[in-house]
């Protein structure tokens, strides 16, 4: 399982980074989105993988090893929200830039 | 007079009684295992949420003939089974040569939006038929059929099996 997820994270990262380095704003936003997934999964992976053990505890004595680590999950939740917000922001900035500068190049003007 | 007032009060409190019932049911299902507490909440929800719907001004739903609904559902169930079977066969490559897909134009009679919506759900829920386009003025429905053996056959199926029942339910 770990190897699959690790490879998956790697591929998402690679695709994201590739897009991040492209000259078109839309490519960049998609790249940021993919990187966002990769990073979220990466944080999630830091809690180790445990199937069928959601951190929903029962009252009483808790066997902590029977549950997945809740901390990375909480961090990922926050990260998801923030990356959603910032993706939206970048989208609007890129739209505005496209409108004002007349190009969708990341520099705001076509490369010479 | 009193009756009318009470009717209006009733309408104020329960603008969409069917919706309220549905909401109550759904809430109970959602929060199962549900005890009295959830029942209370469900009641409150069922009373309050439809008030929001007032703002959206949907057409009022009037439903008659609950028996027809059950008949419809049963018929639908059988058809879903059958059409799934057929479609699966087609997908898996049986009858590759003889099959012909195509569009069918069907003149509909009912114009009630809810009836049409139900029809659309039915048509789409049965694999093998897809609701493509409906012209409001001519009431012509464009249907796409995966296995078009006979156009008239389809027209008949739609008319007799569903539309009539739907017109019974939504007058």
């Amino acid at each position: 399982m770990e190897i699959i997820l690790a490879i998956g994270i790697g591929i998402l990262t690679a695709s994201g980074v590739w897009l991040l380095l492209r000259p078109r704003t839309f490519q960049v936003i998609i790249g940021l989105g993919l990187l966002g997934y990769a990073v979220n999964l990466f944080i999630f992976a830091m809690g180790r993988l445990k199937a069928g053990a959601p951190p929903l505890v029962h009252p009483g004595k808790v066997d902590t090893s029977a549950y997945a680590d809740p901390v990375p999950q909480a961090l990922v939740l926050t990260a998801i929200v923030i990356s959603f917000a910032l993706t939206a922001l970048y989208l609007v900035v890129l739209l505005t830039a496209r409108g004002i500068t007349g190009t969708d190049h990341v520099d705001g003007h076509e490369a010479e | 007079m009193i009756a009318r007032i009470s009717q209006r009060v009733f309408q104020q409190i329960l603008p969409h009684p069917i919706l309220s019932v549905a909401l109550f049911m759904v809430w109970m299902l959602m929060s199962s295992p549900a005890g009295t507490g959830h029942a209370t909440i469900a009641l409150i929800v069922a009373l309050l949420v439809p008030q929001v719907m007032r703002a959206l001004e949907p057409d009022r739903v009037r439903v008659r003939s609950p028996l027809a609904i059950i008949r419809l559902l049963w018929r639908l169930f059988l058809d879903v089974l059958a059409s799934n079977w057929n479609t699966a066969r087609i997908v898996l490559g049986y009858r590759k040569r003889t099959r012909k897909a195509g569009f069918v134009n069907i003149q509909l009679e009912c114009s009630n939006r809810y009836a049409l919506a139900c029809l659309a759900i039915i048509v789409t829920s049965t694999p093998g038929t897809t609701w493509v386009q409906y012209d409001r003025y001519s009431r012509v429905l464009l249907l796409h059929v995966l296995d078009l053996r006979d156009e008239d056959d389809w027209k008949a199926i739609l008319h007799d099996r569903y539309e009539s029942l739907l017109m019974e339910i939504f007058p």
Partner: protein
Amino acid sequence: MNQALLLLIPFATPFIAAIAASFLPTKARNAAATLASAASLIGVIALLCLYPVIASGQVARFAVEWLPTLDIAFRLRLDGFAWLFALIVQAIGALVVLYARYYMSPEDPVPRFFSFLMAFMGAMTGVVMSGDMIQLVLFWELTSFFSFLLIGYWNHSESAQNGARMALTVTALGGLCLLAGVVVLGRIVGSFDMDVVLASADLVKNSPLYLPALCLILMGALTKSAQFPFHFWLPRAMAAPTPVSAYLHSATMVKAGVFLLVRFWPVLAGTPEWGYIVGGAGMFTLLFGAWTAVFQNDLKGLLAYSTISHLGLITLLLGMGTPLALVAAIFHIVNHATFKASLFMAAGVIDHETGTRDLRKLSGLRKTMPYTAALAIVAAAAMAGVPLLNGFLSKEMFLAEALQAPEGRDFSLMVPILATVASALSVLYSVRFIHQVFFGPPATDLPKSPHEPPRWMRFPIELLVLICVVVGTIPALTIAPVLGFAVKSVLGDATPYYSLSIWHGFNLPLLMSFIALIGGTTAYVLFGKRINRADKAWIVGRFSGARAFERAMRWLNISAEWMVLQLGSKKQQWRIRVLVIAAILAGLVAAGFGGLGMKEAGITIQRPGIGFTLIWIVASVCALAAAWQAKYHRLAAVILMAGCGVVSALTFVWFSAPDLAVTQILVEIVTGVLLLLGLRWLPKRSVAMAPSKTDFASRRRRAMDIAIATLAGLGMAVMAFAVMTRPGGSHLSSFLLEESYPRGGGRNVVNVLLVDFRAFDTLGEITVLGIVALTIWALLRRFRPAEESRGITEQRRVQDRHDKQHEQRQSGDTLRETMLIPSVVMKWTFPFIILLALHLFLRGHDLPGGGFAAGVAMSVAFILQYMAEGARWVEERLRIRPLYWIGGGLLITTLTGMASWLFNYPFLTTYFQYGSLPWVEKVPLATAVIFDLGVALLVVGATVLMLTAIAHQSLRTAREIEPVKAPEEGV
């Protein structure tokens, strides 16, 4: 009056006067002048009052603590030499003020002038009286700064601007070096206290840091005193008003450099390094300045180069390193100040009265300005070293010292010869100055008809010339005692015997003096005409320090630009590439190139499941395809990205993170809608442009990007794998799992984390969401879409036209028909989604869900309505005020947090109780629920605001562009 206060007066009064003057009205000429002269006179008086103390060989001190941790204090220290120098500064200052009162035009806003002048005087006094090396540097730089302001007083004149800037550039650079030098010196000595430093000569000279300290300090001194090769700023600084030149460039600022040399003489002088550098610079400057001065056609230019030359002389003397030379140097400092200041003033008078300073135009002024002529002649004679004037005395001492130059060196003979030549040159330009200006036929083409200046404008010159004469004739009665304790304060017990008498008998120095006098005069007679015709100085005229400086500056500028271009880039791609490479490198280097300790950690791997593998193949394919397609098939990229999102949600499900899965799915949906809303405003990118550039460079760039991307992916994969395969679990998570229910009141630990343990994170997170929504909304208020996507979309145009072509149809029917069925369903899902949101909200604390999920679900409900019926329709019916939702949400969360203050608990402390209302079974009643409500409200508001802000653009542009007819032809 106590001593400390007396010390403070000459230092502080000028500054007070400067501030006071700056508040005077612009035309208050007399008031400003009075103020300034009063200030300087007070200073003079205070200094004179201190005379008995100083004359007795004491050192007056005053100290205030300033930076105790650095052992730096504000210390005033007045010894004999400082007293002499301070007196020069203050007294000549008073004279210059008087002179300037008449010199400056009535239209000039002189209060500013006097304010700067006083500030300069204060700074200069500060330099002189500093008892702390750092403080010295501080005032040193202040003199540079105020001289900059004074030179640039006529700030609209380009030469003033350039001159001021050059002066500041050179002297400030020197000052910075001086600072470094002083810090090093302080480091050697262990203190910045001047007394301590001056007493540590041996320590300094034996230190390995001596040479750097010396070089740095000399940089400061030589730049300030306009020594070669930093001399060039001085002539340019002549763009200043003449009183400024008279003050700064003869008597004070340029003397600061030699002052510094004298000050540190006991500590630094006497080594070969000192001799070579200081002496060499002085000698060269002496000759170079004198030679160039000969060829100047401008009065002030001549005086400027002469000043350079005389400063060279002083520097040379100091470089010799003998006590007697030091005496001569100090003496010449005083003499030069008097005659040069008076000459500058005389030049100013001439300029003022005739309107020109050009030696070639001026002629025969002795007729019209006899009195000024007489004064100028005496002063110039002092400059030339004519006997019975003060210049003669110090020059004699100089020549005598030149003969004493260390023997046994190859050039020991050179020094006296060159000194004589320099003296002769000095005679030459003095004679030329006098002859050209005052003798010969009266000039005819002067801009103004010359006459004597006002009485009081001449007074300062008279006074200074008087001093020249008095000192020159009876030195023993006038200057000797002062010079005595000044020298003693520097040399202490090493003070040599010297005699200030006019007549030492026929000796070699006298002979050299006469050779110089005669040689100079003869040279003028022989070459005077040719010199007048010369455009530039012979031989050295081609070399221009200013041009070299300018070239250096331009080189600096160009190389800076080059550097910025080479070390940076305006291209964003480049910048991001650097970031990514940096991160990869950082990871690689820090992790020690793969030494992740996998083996030692003990790997525990779960066998990969086929299903899981398959869904990740899906995600990988989607990701790679999205990377491939994003340029030309944006929609495809969005869809593919959504595919990745689904898989990542599934992964969360797979590995026990239901909350994450819920949130991920919800966010996925909203992001999708958002991107589509945005896509409407991005004009199609035509594939035709695709193969525009596939040249080598771009291919290489792509290859590099692929390499970077691969490396980054590999890095992440390896790190993720390395962490995942080692045992996990932290004390943090154990605590949270254990305490979540008993102390947080919730079974869903993730939710308890979000609303209780780490509620502060959530508060910040929703704030981000709110801010972003606000920003988007603000930005879109002035949105101007791209040219190509203005107006209504192509699809709509086609469909509307179709509707128009058919009689019974109305515009928009196509849409209505299309949405007929969907809108029914979408409308009726509204209450059910509300239900879902409510459900998610209420169960959040115990089961997956929570405020955020509820909020997003709720906003999706709204969006569905917007999609079903259009923005206008919805907003006519539902009054959504997202900003209020955002504000309200924030307020609720914050107030919930603050409520715990009432019970004297920290912010965001939650309170919970398992309530048992009579007919409702156990429900958790936690304040966290209210907090979560705030979260939900804000999320609804923010999400709806973001989406509708973009959606409204369609309405707006449609409104704006409506009149424009769509093209009629063709489908």
